[in-house]
Structures are given as structure tokens and as C-alpha cells.
């Protein structure tokens, strides 16, 4: 999952730094992630993992770092398994 997220981030993130140099916990907004790019990233994640982000997770915190995205996506995948 970490790899898929990093791939997507490289493709749509438009960051001025190389994604490979970002730690999992690094703040993506501070690294230069724009709000437009963050939406492109969300759309990419929905496509890649065949999920849909519920409205309550569509906030800055859920996408603030690679680790946060992993957590958000895992949370949705787990909730789906349980259902």
C-alpha cells in the first residue's frame, strides 16, 4: 500500500521534492501538496483501492502524511471487510 501511495503521489502530487525522500510521517502540505493535487490524490486512491472516502474523512488530517493516508485507507478497507 505504501508503494502504491508513493507512486500516486509522484504522479499527481506535483511536489517540488522527490517522493522517495519523504519520510512516512512527513507533512505533505508543508512539502508543497496543493489542495487541487490532494483531490487528485484522493481520486487516484479511490480508483487504486476501489474505495470511496466517506465525507467525515475528507479533511486535512486524513491526508496529511503518507502514514496518515495508509491509516485512512486501511480504516476504510477494514470497515468494508467487517460489513
Amino acid at each position, binding site marked *: 500500500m505504501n508503494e502504491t501511495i508513493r507512486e500516486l503521489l509522484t504522479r499527481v502530487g506535483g*511536489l*517540488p*521534492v522527490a517522493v522517495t525522500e519523504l519520510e512516512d510521517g512527513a507533512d505533505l*502540505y*508543508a*512539502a*508543497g*501538496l*496543493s*489542495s*487541487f493535487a490532494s*483531490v487528485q490524490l*484522493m*481520486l487516484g486512491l*479511490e480508483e487504486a483501492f476501489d474505495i470511496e*472516502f466517506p*465525507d*467525515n474523512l*475528507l*479533511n*486535512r*488530517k486524513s491526508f496529511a502524511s503518507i502514514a496518515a493516508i495508509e491509516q485512512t485507507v486501511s480504516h476504510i478497507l477494514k470497515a468494508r471487510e467487517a460489513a
Partner: protein
Amino acid sequence: MSLPAFAADMALSARAHRVATVAAEFADLVDRDGRFPREAVDAMKAERLLGIQIPTGFGGEGASITEIAEVCSILGQACASSAMVFAMHQIKVSSLVVHGADSPWHMDFMRELAGRQLLVASATTEAGIGGNMRNSICAIEVDGDTCRLTKDATVISYGAHADAVMVTSRSNEGAAPTDQVMTVFRHGQYTLQKTVDWDTLGMRGTCSDGFLFQGEAPSAQIFPKPFAEIAAQSMLATSHLLWSSVWYGIAADAVLRAQAFVRAAARKAGGTQPPGALRLAEASNQLQLLKGNILSGLKHYEDARLDPDRLSSMGFSIAMNNVKLASSEMILTIINQAMIICGIMGYKNGTPYSLGRHLRDAHSAQLMISNDRILGNTSTMLLVQKPDTSLVG
């Protein structure tokens, strides 16, 4: 004065109305000369309106966004420039109240602001960023306990008349354009060299000149939170809501003037319906729609206020964007309607029904953060966020 009479005298709306009386007296002069509404702002200080939002623990009155919106509307009915200065000041104060409560320097500043009625301006726009305040080119230089900043600020509303300016910048020389902080600089800690003159169609009294800002202050004056959080959690909502409240005031006064015109015509017509009467009914309908739009936005903010996740959610941003878009467009329709009702008496300056200033001031609304930019942001968010279909919410 009896205690109940004193209480009524000290009520926020009574104080706002007294300031509005002063603002109305000088409104045409301020507009004509494009000068700062000094008398109105002095009256705000005398009535202690500048510190109402500061919590009571810091010497303020802990006024809610709804109470402040009402003051904006009352002032907007008298002089839009004065009202906008008040609104912009309160937007800066909201950042202090929401994000400064953990920082000793900002807590002291809140106490002083309430005590001495300090007027705070904002320097968020910069040459070269294309109007997007969530990007900065300039970077703050932190050198131990001191910070230094130079900013080519294309707009600092009432910058030359403020007691402090809150300035955004990149957090350090190596930071990305979106990695921003905001710093409070007090009068005496900065110089302003005027670069752009504010000679505009309307809102002429806000004196939103451009300046080369150069400041040096203790580093403790940098807000401890990233500007991204400040923008999302206090500025976005308070800007759209308080601006809209000022605009509502402009439109409300236009409708009031149109009604006075129709009444005068009705008295002369001796029983027949004057021609503007139906349009007045329409204008009153539109004004009520506008009021409903702003009130629902205020309720939305009051409900979300204490929940940072909700404040930075897309659903909330879309709701606030929609308040701004609708208010800024509707006021033009309403004031135009009032102008048609009052006819040449509305078009002329210096009559009791004059609406030229209202119309010119109102035209700024679609441009203060361009509606096209806001529509663009909302359309991006709607690629993932479902539209709000609830009625009561």
C-alpha cells in the same frame, strides 16, 4: 441612569448603532476623498467594539461570530468602508482567539488589544502569487530570538492606520510556497513604503494601498501553528461570514431607501399603487433570501466551531464558499432593483435615495477573493465530496 437603562445603553447593538450614526455622517466624504474613516474607527474604539471577540478572561467580551456579524451589518448600513475595516479587523482577531490561546506572547497581545483597542490589519497578498494567499514567496528569517521579514504586499487594507499587522510568509528560506506561518508585527516594529495607490470604484475608505513591508520583531510573535491551519479553521469561515454581513448591510440600506421612495410616491399618489411597489416586494424577497443564506452559514460555523476536523473538512469549506458566492452576487441584484425603483433620484448623488455608493461598494464583493477562484476550488472538492442535501443539517 437606572441599571436597566445602563444595560440597554451598553448592549452591543446600541453601541454599534451609535458608531453607525458617526459612520453615516462621514460616509459620503470618506467615499469621495477615498480617505480612512477615522471618525468611525475612533467611535468603534470609544464604544470598545474592537475587542469584543477577545474572551472575557483576556479582558474582552467573548462575542460570538453571530453577534459580530450583526455589528458588521449595522455598520454596513451606514458606511460600507467602515464596516469592512471592522470586519477585516475581527477576522484577524479570530485568528488570535482561535490559535493564540496557547502562546504567552499572543495571550498578552489579546489583553492589550482589548485594553487599548488596537486595530489589526492583514498582509496576506503578495506580488507574484497570483492572488492565492495560501502561497508565499517571501520567507521569514528567524535569528535566535529575533525574526525579520520583507514582503512586497500588494494590498494591506488600512495598513497606514493600523496598530499592528499580521503578515504571512514561508516558514523559512528553504520552505515550499505552501509551508507558511503568520506573524504579528506591532506598530513601531515595521516600516511601510507605499508602492500602490488605492484609487478604486468603491470601498474607497478601506485605503487598501500596497506597501513594501519590512519588519523585525521577537520570534515569539510568530503564531505557533502553521498558517494552513489558521486559514482553514478561522480565516476562511470568518472572512466569508463577516464580509457577507457587511454586504447584507449595504443591500439592506438600499432596500430601505427604495421603500422610503415608494412610500413618498404612495403618499403623493393618493391611493393608487406607485410604479416601484411591486419591485420593492421583489427586493424584500431577495433580501430575505440573502439573510437566510448568511444565517444558515453562521449556524453552520457555530455548530462546527469547536471541532477542528469539521472546520478543515471539505463539506464545511464548500458551505462557506457557497455563502460568499451567493451573498456577493445577490447584493448586486438587490441594489440594482432598488436603483430601478428610485430611478433618477437613486442615480443622482446627494439625494436621500442615492444608491451610487452602495452599488459601487457592492461591486467589490465578487472580487474580494475572486468568485471564479472560489467556484474553481469548490468544483475541485465536488470531485470527491458529496453535495450537502440535508435541509436542517
